[in-house]
Protein backbone atom coordinates (compact mmCIF):
# COMPACT_ATOMS: atom_id res chain seq x y z
CA UNK A 1 0.00 0.00 0.00
CA UNK A 2 1.07 3.56 -0.63
CA UNK A 3 0.77 6.50 1.72
CA UNK A 4 1.77 10.14 1.85
CA UNK A 5 2.59 12.23 4.89
CA UNK A 6 2.67 16.00 4.89
CA UNK A 7 4.27 16.84 8.17
CA UNK A 8 3.09 20.42 8.49
CA UNK A 9 -0.58 21.30 8.45
CA UNK A 10 0.15 25.03 8.40
CA UNK A 11 3.23 27.03 7.42
CA UNK A 12 3.32 30.80 7.98
CA UNK A 13 6.11 32.67 6.18
CA UNK A 14 6.86 36.29 5.46
CA UNK A 15 6.71 37.63 1.92
CA UNK A 16 9.97 37.25 -0.05
CA UNK A 17 11.25 34.61 2.40
CA UNK A 18 12.06 31.06 1.24
CA UNK A 19 9.72 28.19 2.07
CA UNK A 20 9.89 24.41 2.14
CA UNK A 21 6.79 22.22 2.37
CA UNK A 22 7.59 18.67 3.40
CA UNK A 23 6.24 15.48 1.89
CA UNK A 24 7.22 11.92 2.71
CA UNK A 25 5.82 8.87 1.01
CA UNK A 26 5.71 5.16 1.59
CA UNK A 27 5.61 2.63 -1.21
CA UNK A 28 6.97 -0.81 -1.95
CA UNK A 29 7.11 -0.09 -5.69
CA UNK A 30 8.22 2.71 -7.96
CA UNK A 31 6.16 5.84 -7.61
CA UNK A 32 5.24 8.93 -9.47
CA UNK A 33 5.03 12.06 -7.33
CA UNK A 34 3.06 15.27 -7.74
CA UNK A 35 2.47 18.59 -6.05
CA UNK A 36 -0.81 20.43 -6.50
CA UNK A 37 -2.01 23.81 -5.27
CA UNK A 38 -5.59 24.61 -4.31
CA UNK A 39 -6.75 28.20 -4.00
CA UNK A 40 -9.93 28.85 -1.97
CA UNK A 41 -13.08 27.44 -3.56
CA UNK A 42 -11.17 26.12 -6.54
CA UNK A 43 -9.96 22.79 -7.89
CA UNK A 44 -6.38 21.54 -7.87
CA UNK A 45 -3.71 22.93 -10.16
CA UNK A 46 -0.65 20.86 -11.02
CA UNK A 47 2.55 22.54 -9.83
CA UNK A 48 5.09 19.89 -10.80
CA UNK A 49 5.63 16.17 -11.18
CA UNK A 50 8.37 13.58 -10.81
CA UNK A 51 8.13 10.57 -13.07
CA UNK A 52 11.78 9.60 -13.60
CA UNK A 53 15.15 11.09 -14.46
CA UNK A 54 16.55 14.17 -12.79
CA UNK A 55 15.66 14.28 -9.12
CA UNK A 56 15.31 18.08 -9.13
CA UNK A 57 12.05 19.05 -10.74
CA UNK A 58 11.06 22.57 -11.65
CA UNK A 59 7.44 23.60 -11.84
CA UNK A 60 5.26 26.60 -12.40
CA UNK A 61 5.25 29.82 -10.39
CA UNK A 62 8.91 29.39 -9.36
CA UNK A 63 8.37 26.20 -7.37
CA UNK A 64 10.74 23.24 -7.42
CA UNK A 65 10.92 19.89 -5.66
CA UNK A 66 13.59 17.31 -5.05
CA UNK A 67 12.96 13.59 -5.14
CA UNK A 68 15.03 11.73 -2.55
CA UNK A 69 14.59 7.99 -2.84
CA UNK A 70 16.67 7.08 0.19
CA UNK A 71 14.68 9.39 2.44
CA UNK A 72 11.42 8.73 0.56
CA UNK A 73 10.80 12.46 0.38
CA UNK A 74 9.59 14.94 -2.20
CA UNK A 75 9.81 18.36 -0.55
CA UNK A 76 8.51 21.45 -2.30
CA UNK A 77 10.54 24.65 -2.22
CA UNK A 78 10.34 28.22 -3.38
CA UNK A 79 13.20 30.70 -2.83
CA UNK A 80 10.99 33.77 -2.44
CA UNK A 81 7.24 33.63 -1.80
CA UNK A 82 4.57 36.15 -2.68
CA UNK A 83 1.27 36.97 -1.03
CA UNK A 84 -0.42 35.27 -3.98
CA UNK A 85 1.18 31.94 -3.01
CA UNK A 86 -1.17 31.72 -0.04
CA UNK A 87 -3.08 28.50 -0.67
CA UNK A 88 -3.27 24.84 0.27
CA UNK A 89 -0.65 22.52 -1.16
CA UNK A 90 -1.13 18.79 -1.66
CA UNK A 91 1.45 16.13 -2.29
CA UNK A 92 0.23 13.03 -4.15
CA UNK A 93 1.67 9.65 -5.10
CA UNK A 94 0.62 7.41 -7.94
CA UNK A 95 1.94 4.33 -9.64
CA UNK A 96 1.92 0.82 -8.25
CA UNK A 97 -1.37 -0.79 -9.16
CA UNK A 98 -1.78 0.55 -12.66
CA UNK A 99 -4.90 2.48 -11.76
CA UNK A 100 -2.93 5.74 -11.76
CA UNK A 101 -5.17 6.89 -8.92
CA UNK A 102 -3.70 9.42 -6.51
CA UNK A 103 -3.09 8.96 -2.84
CA UNK A 104 -3.01 12.44 -1.36
CA UNK A 105 -1.38 13.84 1.71
CA UNK A 106 -3.51 15.81 4.13
CA UNK A 107 -2.33 19.13 2.74
CA UNK A 108 -0.26 22.06 3.99
CA UNK A 109 -1.81 25.48 4.30
CA UNK A 110 0.77 28.08 3.30
CA UNK A 111 0.06 31.54 4.62
CA UNK A 112 2.28 34.30 3.30
CA UNK A 113 2.44 37.31 5.62
CA UNK A 114 3.10 40.88 4.53
Amino acid at each position, binding site marked *: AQSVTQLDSQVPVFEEAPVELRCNYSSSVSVYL*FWYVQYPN*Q*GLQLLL*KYLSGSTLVKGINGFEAEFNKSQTSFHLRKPSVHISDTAEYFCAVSGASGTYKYIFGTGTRLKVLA
Partner: protein
Amino acid sequence: EAGVTQSPTHLIKTRGQQATLRCSPISGHTSVYWYQQALGLGLQFLLWYDEGEERNRGNFPPRFSGRQFPNYSSELNVNALELEDSALYLCASRPQGTYEQYFGPGTRLTVT
Protein backbone atom coordinates in the same frame (compact mmCIF):
# COMPACT_ATOMS: atom_id res chain seq x y z
CA GLU B 1 -7.96 24.31 -24.73
CA ALA B 2 -10.86 24.08 -22.33
CA GLY B 3 -10.16 22.53 -18.96
CA VAL B 4 -12.19 20.01 -17.02
CA THR B 5 -15.67 21.32 -16.33
CA GLN B 6 -18.07 20.24 -13.62
CA SER B 7 -21.71 20.97 -12.98
CA PRO B 8 -23.43 22.12 -10.94
CA THR B 9 -21.12 24.33 -8.91
CA HIS B 10 -23.22 23.92 -5.81
CA LEU B 11 -25.87 21.36 -4.93
CA ILE B 12 -28.04 21.31 -1.85
CA LYS B 13 -29.95 18.14 -1.05
CA THR B 14 -31.86 16.66 1.84
CA ARG B 15 -30.79 13.51 3.63
CA GLY B 16 -32.13 10.44 1.81
CA GLN B 17 -32.31 12.11 -1.59
CA GLN B 18 -30.14 11.35 -4.62
CA ALA B 19 -27.49 13.64 -6.12
CA THR B 20 -26.10 13.63 -9.65
CA LEU B 21 -22.84 15.38 -10.43
CA ARG B 22 -21.45 15.80 -13.93
CA CYS B 23 -17.97 16.11 -15.38
CA SER B 24 -16.62 16.86 -18.84
CA PRO B 25 -12.96 15.95 -19.32
CA ILE B 26 -10.42 17.80 -21.39
CA SER B 27 -10.84 16.96 -25.06
CA GLY B 28 -8.91 13.80 -25.90
CA HIS B 29 -8.69 12.55 -22.32
CA THR B 30 -10.28 9.16 -21.92
CA SER B 31 -9.80 8.57 -18.19
CA VAL B 32 -11.95 10.28 -15.57
CA TYR B 33 -11.39 10.14 -11.82
CA TRP B 34 -13.66 11.24 -9.00
CA TYR B 35 -12.39 12.34 -5.59
CA GLN B 36 -14.17 13.43 -2.43
CA GLN B 37 -12.72 16.28 -0.37
CA ALA B 38 -14.53 16.26 2.93
CA LEU B 39 -13.67 18.49 5.87
CA GLY B 40 -11.23 16.70 8.11
CA LEU B 41 -10.89 13.70 5.81
CA GLY B 42 -8.74 15.13 3.03
CA LEU B 43 -8.89 14.03 -0.58
CA GLN B 44 -10.13 10.48 -1.08
CA PHE B 45 -10.21 8.52 -4.34
CA LEU B 46 -13.75 7.50 -5.26
CA LEU B 47 -13.93 6.08 -8.79
CA TRP B 48 -11.96 5.68 -12.00
CA TYR B 49 -13.55 5.37 -15.44
CA ASP B 50 -11.71 4.64 -18.64
CA GLU B 51 -13.10 3.93 -22.09
CA GLY B 52 -16.60 3.72 -20.69
CA GLU B 53 -15.85 1.17 -18.00
CA GLU B 54 -15.46 1.45 -14.23
CA ARG B 55 -11.86 0.37 -13.66
CA ASN B 56 -11.40 0.90 -9.94
CA ARG B 57 -13.22 2.23 -6.92
CA GLY B 58 -12.09 3.49 -3.55
CA ASN B 59 -13.33 2.52 -0.13
CA PHE B 60 -16.84 3.93 -0.50
CA PRO B 61 -20.22 2.22 -0.17
CA PRO B 62 -22.13 1.07 -3.26
CA ARG B 63 -24.52 4.01 -3.05
CA PHE B 64 -21.70 5.94 -4.70
CA SER B 65 -21.81 5.00 -8.36
CA GLY B 66 -21.40 6.53 -11.75
CA ARG B 67 -20.84 6.01 -15.39
CA GLN B 68 -18.86 7.26 -18.33
CA PHE B 69 -20.51 8.14 -21.60
CA PRO B 70 -19.21 7.52 -25.15
CA ASN B 71 -17.94 11.11 -25.31
CA TYR B 72 -15.93 10.36 -22.11
CA SER B 73 -17.96 12.69 -19.93
CA SER B 74 -18.93 11.20 -16.61
CA GLU B 75 -21.63 11.26 -14.02
CA LEU B 76 -21.35 10.56 -10.30
CA ASN B 77 -24.49 9.45 -8.50
CA VAL B 78 -24.87 9.39 -4.76
CA ASN B 79 -27.98 7.63 -3.49
CA ALA B 80 -29.59 7.76 -0.07
CA LEU B 81 -27.62 10.87 0.87
CA GLU B 82 -26.22 11.12 4.38
CA LEU B 83 -25.06 14.24 6.19
CA GLU B 84 -21.44 13.08 5.99
CA ASP B 85 -21.63 13.07 2.19
CA SER B 86 -21.35 16.86 2.36
CA ALA B 87 -18.07 17.61 0.60
CA LEU B 88 -16.38 19.06 -2.45
CA TYR B 89 -16.41 16.47 -5.24
CA LEU B 90 -13.56 16.85 -7.68
CA CYS B 91 -13.34 15.33 -11.10
CA ALA B 92 -10.04 14.88 -12.91
CA SER B 93 -9.12 13.67 -16.37
CA ARG B 94 -5.96 12.03 -17.63
CA PRO B 95 -4.79 11.49 -21.19
CA GLN B 96 -3.72 8.00 -22.22
CA GLY B 97 -0.07 7.18 -21.71
CA THR B 98 0.52 9.82 -19.05
CA TYR B 99 0.31 9.90 -15.27
CA GLU B 100 -0.79 13.41 -14.36
CA GLN B 101 -4.38 14.33 -13.73
CA TYR B 102 -6.09 17.63 -14.48
CA PHE B 103 -8.76 18.72 -12.07
CA GLY B 104 -12.02 20.56 -12.48
CA PRO B 105 -13.27 23.25 -10.08
CA GLY B 106 -15.45 20.82 -8.18
CA THR B 107 -19.07 20.52 -7.12
CA ARG B 108 -19.85 21.41 -3.54
CA LEU B 109 -22.56 19.11 -2.24
CA THR B 110 -24.35 20.09 0.94
CA VAL B 111 -26.68 17.58 2.58
CA THR B 112 -29.10 18.98 5.14
